[in-house]
C-alpha cells in the first residue's frame, strides 16, 4: 500500500498570529524516505501535522493519496498517515504496553489474530516484546519513545511520520530506529521524519528537506544537501554539515555526507 502526499503553497497561521508555514510546496512520492530538518520553530512539526489533519492549512492545499485532505475526516486520514509525536507522553495513555500498541490498529478495525500479529510485529520491531505486560510509565523515557513508535507501526499506515524519533536514544536505539525506517521503506511505505541529528539524517534518508522560518530552503539527496556549495544555506538556519562532509570537502573528494561515502570516495581516489 503506497500513496503520494503533497502540499501546495500551504500557509498556516496559529491563533496567536504566528505564521508557522509561509507557502510550503512539497511532493512526496509513494515510498519516499524524507527527513525534514531546521531550527526549533522553523515549522517542521506544523508541516507534518497538516498531513494527518491535526492542523488544517490556513491557505493552500494538502493532498493525501490524490485526494484533497479537506474532504477527508481526521479519522480517515489517521488510517493513512500515522504520526509518532516528539513527546511520547502526549500519546501514551493505556495501562499496558500491549493495549497501548493495540489501540490504533483496533480503531482502524483490526481484530483477532490479525490485530495480535500487528501488535507483536510492532513490539518486536522496537525491541519491547518482553515488556508487553508492563505499564508504559514503568518504562524509561527512551523506551516510552520506542513504544510510541510501535503504536504507529502497528497501524500499518502507508505513510509514517516520525517527529524526532532518536531523541533520548542511545547508540543501539538510534541503530534500531534506522533499521525500522529502512524496513518501512523497503515495504513501500513512505517515511517522513523530523530530526535534529544530521548524522542520522545523512545515513538513513534518501532525501533531506531543509526549512527556515516556515519555508523550504533546500530539498535534495543527502549528498546534495551536505555538499560544500549548500553549506551557506545550511548555515543560514544554523545547521552544520556532518563531519565526514567537512572532511571530504577539505580533501577535495566531493560530497561525502556519511562515513561510508567518505570511505568510498577515498577508495576511488
Amino acid at each position: 500500500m503506497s500513496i503520494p502526499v503533497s502540499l501546495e503553497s500551504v500557509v498556516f497561521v496559529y491563533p496567536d498570529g504566528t505564521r508557522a508555514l509561509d507557502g510550503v510546496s512539497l511532493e512526496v512520492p509513494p515510498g519516499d524516505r524524507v527527513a525534514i530538518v531546521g531550527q526549533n520553530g522553523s515549522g517542521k512539526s506544523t508541516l507534518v501535522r497538516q498531513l494527518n489533519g491535526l492542523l488544517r492549512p490556513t491557505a493552500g492545499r494538502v493532498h493525501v493519496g490524490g485526494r484533497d485532505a479537506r474532504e477527508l475526516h481526521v479519522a480517515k486520514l489517521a488510517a493513512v498517515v500515522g504520526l509518532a509525536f516528539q513527546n511520547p507522553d502526549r500519546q501514551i495513555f493505556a495501562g499496558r504496553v500491549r493495549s497501548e500498541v493495540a489501540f490504533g490498529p483496533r480503531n482502524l478495525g483490526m481484530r483477532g489474530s490479525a490485530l495480535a500479529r500487528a501488535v507483536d510485529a510492532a513490539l518486536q520491531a522496537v525491541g519491547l516484546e518482553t515488556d508487553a505486560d508492563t505499564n508504559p510509565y514503568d518504562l524509561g523515557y527512551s523506551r516510552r519513545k520506542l513504544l510510541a513508535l510501535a503504536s504507529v507501526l502497528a497501524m500499518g499506515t502507508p505513510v509514517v511520520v516520525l517527529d524526532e524519533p532518536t531523541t533520548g536514544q542511545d547508540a543501539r536505539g538510534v541503530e534500531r530506529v534506522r533499521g525500522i525506517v529502512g524496513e518501512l521503506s523497503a515495504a513501500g511505505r513512505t517515511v517522513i521524519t523530523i530530526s535534529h541529528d544530521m548524522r542520522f539524517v545523512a545515513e538513513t534518508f534518501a532525501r533531506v528537506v531543509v526549512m527556515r522560518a516556515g519555508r523550504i530552503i533546500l530539498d535534495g539527496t543527502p549528498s546534495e544537501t551536505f555538499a560544500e556549495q549548500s553549506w551557506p544555506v545550511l548555515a543560514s538556519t544554523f545547521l552544520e554539515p556532518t563531519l565526514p562532509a567537512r572532511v571530504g570537502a577539505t580533501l577535495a573528494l566531493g560530497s561525502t555526507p556519511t562515513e561510508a561515502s567518505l570511505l568510498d570516495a577515498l577508495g576511488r581516489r
Partner: protein
Amino acid sequence: MAIELRAAGYRYLGATHPALESIDLRLEPGHVVGVVGANEAGKSTLCLVAAGLAPATIGGKLDGSVTIDSVETRTMRPHEVAQRCGILFQNPATQLSGTTRTVWEEIAFGPRNLGLPLAELAERVDWAIGIVRIERLAPRDPTMLSGGEAQLVALASVLALRPAYLVLDEPTSQLDPLGTRLVGQALRALARETGTGVLVVEHKADLLVRVAEQVVVLDRGRAVIAGPADAVFAGPGLEEHGVDRPSAVRVERALRAAGYEVAGTIAAAIAAAADADVAGGADGDGAQFVAAGAAAGGEDVSA
C-alpha cells in the same frame, strides 16, 4: 568542596535489584563531568543520587557514602540539598511549576522562594535568561512552549537558583544543533567563570567531548569506564556498553579499519572538521554572558 560518591549504591523503594552499585565519582567546583551509558544504565538514578534527591526526597536505600561539601546527603533535608545542588530533569515538562503566567515569572519562581530582594531576583532571572538566550520567550505562556523551548526555560529556572553544583539529565535532548552548541558553551563558561560544578548526562558525544573534562561510562548500574573525556572516547569498550563516540573519533576509526593511515592531510582534515563551528554560534559568546551575570549577580558564586 565537592560532590563525592564513595562506593555508592542505590535501590528504589520496592525494587529487588539495585539501580546503582559501588559508584565512585568526584565532582569539583569549576569542573564538568559527563555521564554516558546505554538506556537504563542508571544515568538518571545517578543524577538523583548525586543531587541528593535520593534518598532525601524519594526514599529508597542508599549504600556507601554520598556527600555534598562533606555533608552526607542522607542526613540532609530536601531544602538543604536543593540550596547546594540544582537538578534538571530529563523531561522539562515535569519541572515547570504550572503556576505562572509568563516564562519570566516561571524562572523567578525558584529564586523568589529563596526570599531574595526584588532587584536581585530580577537580576538573577535576566542573567539566567541571557545565558540560554531565551529573551524572546520571556513574555510567553510557559505551558505553550515547544519541547526545545521548555527545555531551555527549565534550564534557566535551575540556573537562576545559582546553585554551587548543577546536575543535568540530558539537557539538550530536544534542542536543535545551535541550541545544543549554545548550551554546551554556556555550561563550559559557567564552570570556568562561576566555579559551578556540573554533572551532565548526555548521549551526544560530540557535545560532551567539547564540554566535559572527565567522562564516566555507566552500564547496568556500574561505572565501567572513567577518565579524561578524550581518552574515554578514543579508548576501547564503548561499543559493548552501547555508547556512541564523537564524530571525529568515529571517522578516524572507520578510516583505520579500512586500512588508511590517519596522518598528514587526512588527520589535519579531521581535526579541522572537528573544530569547525556552526555559523553564528561563535565560541566565547556564552562566556561573555556568564561573566556579565557573575559581575552583576552575587555573593553566592561558589568559586
